[in-house]
């Protein structure tokens, strides 16, 4: 197909594809799936961190956390807008989230059990997200690429804030240090799983790479993440909960153990510690907000009708 070939050549040349331009149906579908999944992750991702806003230990930390959660909602907004340029409405996307058809990042199905988790999420979860997202700034689809540029800037700020929380805590009391180690123990493996299973096991990878929707393999990114994170953990005086972890001078990176992928697939299948709570909270928010949304629509219609009536009267 010459049209498809021309499209692929544009992608290969590094041109950006823009909303009204022709694109293969598979490209569109893959993008919608990926962008909306990312958007949903931002929205659901408000919940585990939001869980500690009312308990943040200082006013400054509370303000920082509020701002962070607000940023996440903002990222959700950019991403839904990017998805909408592909011809799907936000309401449709919500519907897919609420019915369980669309996924969000499984990491948000783990609970936040101490204040150190807020630090760990910033450090590890945002860290892994950035690792995934930095290459997406060069994604072939223009609106997505631009959204990612904006998002990455804020995310790296969040990551530093998370690390700062932990830094302060490890310099504190024994109880605080224990909290931090405990948080690392719980978040380490789920963070590694954020890159997805090994590429051999991933169906969509090859085509997505060709379309420059995806730029690096899951394993590459995971390795990069481990190599970046281990020295940071050491600096904090923490132990990575992986007995197989060791420096491999030959490859210039760390060897590390295999995550428990059965857990990963369980959580994806809905069997994580908080899947029901997370989705339940979103569905509840949406359902209980129906009257609010309807009210605003009704008001807008009334106002428009009045304006028309006033115009007619004036004519």
């Amino acid at each position, binding site marked *: 197909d010459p049209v498809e070939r021309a499209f692929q050549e544009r992608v290969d040349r590094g041109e950006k594809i823009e909303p009204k331009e022709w694109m293969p149906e598979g490209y569109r579908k893959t993008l919608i799936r990926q962008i909306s999944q990312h958007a949903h992750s931002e929205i659901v991702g408000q919940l585990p961190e*939001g869980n500690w806003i009312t308990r943040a230990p200082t*006013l400054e930390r509370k303000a920082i956390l509020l701002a962070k959660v607000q940023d996440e909602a903002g990222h959700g907004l950019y991403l839904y807008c990017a998805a909408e340029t592909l011809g799907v409405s936000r309401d449709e996307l919500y519907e897919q989230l609420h019915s369980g058809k669309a996924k969000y990042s499984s990491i948000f199905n783990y609970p936040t059990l101490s204040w150190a988790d807020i630090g760990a999420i910033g450090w590890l979860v945002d860290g892994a997200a950035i690792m995934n997202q930095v290459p997406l700034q060069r994604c072939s689809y223009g609106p997505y690429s631009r959204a990612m540029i904006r998002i990455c800037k804020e995310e790296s700020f969040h990551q530093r804030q998370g690390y700062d929380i932990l830094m302060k805590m490890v310099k504190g*009391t024994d109880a605080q240090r224990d909290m931090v180690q405990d948080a690392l123990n719980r978040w380490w493996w789920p963070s590694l799983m954020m890159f997805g299973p090994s590429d051999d096991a991933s169906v969509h990878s090859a085509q997505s790479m060709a379309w420059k929707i995806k730029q690096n393999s899951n394993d590459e990114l995971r390795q990069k993440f481990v190599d970046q994170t281990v020295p940071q953990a050491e600096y904090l005086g923490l132990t990575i909960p992986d007995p197989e972890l060791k420096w491999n001078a030959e490859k210039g990176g760390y060897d590390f153990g295999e995550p428990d992928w059965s857990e990963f697939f369980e959580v994806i299948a809905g069997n994580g510690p908080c899947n029901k709570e997370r989705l339940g909270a979103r569905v509840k928010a949406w359902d209980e907000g129906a009257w*609010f949304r309807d009210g605003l629509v009704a008001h807008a219609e*009334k106002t428009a009708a009045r304006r028309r009536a006033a115009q007619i009267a004036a004519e």
Partner: protein
Amino acid sequence: MAAVAETAVDQAALFDFLLRMGDNCLILGHRVSEWCGHGPVLEEDIALANVALDLIGQTQLWLGLAGTIEGRGRDADALAYRRDAQGFRNLLLTEIPNGDFGHTLMRQFLFDAWHLPMLKALEGSSDPRLAEIAAKAVREVAYHLERSGDLVIRLGDGTEESHRRMQTALEALWPYTGEMFMDDAGDARLAGVAPLPSSLRDAWQATLSEVLSEATLQQPADGYMHRGGKRGVHSEHLGFILAEMQFLQRAYPDATW
């Protein structure tokens, strides 16, 4: 100059007034922040987080100054996290549970419509420290009021159900509005520094009249008004707010965060 100001006014009354300002922001900010991730549309999640953020920022300023005035080494965090309910001076209105989203919005509107003229008056305070904080906060709060007033209008004059919910919220919250305008002995000792609460009623009423009329909502008749928050006699809700808010500071007294 500061020394002159400090001897001229009653420091205990000033401390109390600053707690009132700061505690209003802290407790209402807490309540608003409970919505994070649970709002009816994404834009509201963002807007509410923004309001909460502004209020927490203002809390830092008011309680920070309160600690300075008190002169016993307590900073804003010490005041926020180490006082029990009896020491809080916020209006009862700010500690009421969120209820539905309409209830939260109406509470915000009733508060904002008071908060803005209060801050405007404080911009002219004879104490430059108060005037400075007020000048910073007034811009944020003007936006809060614009937003809450606008939503009250749109939902009041929306569907039958949204109208009903907003009217119900207004009636439920009404008995908590009187406290905003009650003067006490402390207020009287702050002439020039802070306005008399009663002096803010006209501006508040003007905003209400305008917004409620456009919202097709009925202002309730004045009746029994709850009071006590401003002198530390709260509702049963505040204790639960504080148990949650203060947990880490209380459980780990030697920690720094």
